[in-house]
């Protein structure tokens, strides 16, 4: 039983870590602010959930479980709100979502630097 819990918990932690790494890759590779926020915030909450679940299985049941639960509630509350605020701020400062097809990777940087021009590329 304890052995099984160890493996399941460990597996969940590794999965959570993998998800976070994927999120980081998304932040680096996605084309505009909004998709990047999307990548970061979703994988952040998801990864943290998996890891906390794993830790809860590894640790003894009791006060520690309660603390992990509180941490989880806190993350579920703050991380989406932060993502929302970030997107709001980006929108407010003139960044527009890029919609349509992108073939030329080199263009990304140019449009990031000049957010106003992003609107022109709309399909």
């Amino acid at each position, binding site marked *: 039983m304890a052995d099984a819990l160890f493996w399941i918990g460990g597996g969940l932690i590794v999965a959570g870590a993998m998800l976070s790494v994927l999120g980081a890759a998304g932040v680096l590779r996605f084309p505009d602010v909004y998709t990047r926020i999307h990548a970061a915030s979703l994988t952040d909450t998801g990864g943290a959930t998996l890891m906390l679940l794993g830790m809860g299985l590894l640790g003894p049941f009791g006060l520690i479980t309660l603390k992990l639960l509180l941490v989880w509630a*806190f993350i579920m*509350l*703050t991380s989406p*709100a932060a993502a*929302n*605020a970030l997107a*709001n701020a980006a*929108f*407010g400062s003139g960044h527009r979502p890029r919609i349509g097809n992108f073939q030329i990777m080199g263009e990304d940087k140019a449009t990031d630097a000049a957010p106003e021009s992003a609107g022109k590329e709309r399909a």
Partner: protein
Amino acid sequence: MTAPVLEASFALNVALLLMLVVLAAAVVWTRSLLAAILLMSVYSLVSATWLMVMDAPDVAFTEAVVGAGISTIVALGAILLTRGEAVRVSWKRQVVPGLLAGLVGGLLIYAMSGLPDFGDPASPANSHVGRAYLETAKRDIGAPNVVTAVLGSYRGFDTLGETVVILAACIGVALMLGFGPRATLAPPAGAPGDHHVVLRVTAKMLVPLIILFALYVQFHGDLGAGGGFQAGVIAAVAIILHALVFGLRETTAAIPPQAARAVAALGVVVYAGVGIVCIVNGGGFLDYDHLLTPQIEAMIPAGLLGDPDKPHHWGQYFGILAIELGVLMTVSATMITIFYGFAGRTIDAIAAELRR
């Protein structure tokens, strides 16, 4: 001397330290101040992790709330009010500073050879006073967290000085930025173009929770990591969050800057007052064993805290509780004052000052 056995966590130690070196190098290299500040914030988080590996949870906690929290906020406020980029320094102007830093570094490397090995339990540092605290803290003070015992009681005078340093910073920042034209930070709710409903709702939920957490940290300091300083910063963060979301006008209506400054001063009064009470009751300054007169001590029910048969150091217990309260007051009020100082100044305020 034979080398001590290194643990498995040594690898973690090395990895984290290398990350710190990379971060520091990036700070040296970058010209963007925004990047430098964020890198320093990451640096603080990594070093907080490292401090956990070094068995220093109290310090790690402090480093996380201070380095990654307050320092970052203050520094971001400062670059908003000044400039986001440093001017490039020509390599000629870097030669002499490089030589100076190299000189100090060389001296340090030479000196480090005289230090005991890492992790050596028999080194002078780890065997004299430090070891003695571990053996006597439970007997003298009664708190399981030895760091709290040393901080609050054995070296309580240092902590008083530390609290006074915080008050000095409060006075300093208030003198520099606390007067003159003020800004209001965020637009009032319901203004056109206001999209921050989600943020406001979340913040409304979070502020009381954060303050609750601060109180937990405050009173848990005897048993685990935490104490007045960390709790003070956390409580201040709740207020700062409120100001960021609801605007400075709302927050200063609840906590006026004068009130914040007064609380900061009162915190030191509480701390030093505990010391004076000890003198009045016949002990030395901050000698908590004389904090309570025997009459008062007799009134405390024996079973107030856990086992009634175990002797309790009521003076030490209440003394540390009281001084931690003083620290909480000064630290939280000072952090709020510092935030008010930076947030209350905007470019408009600068322009007004310049016209004056």
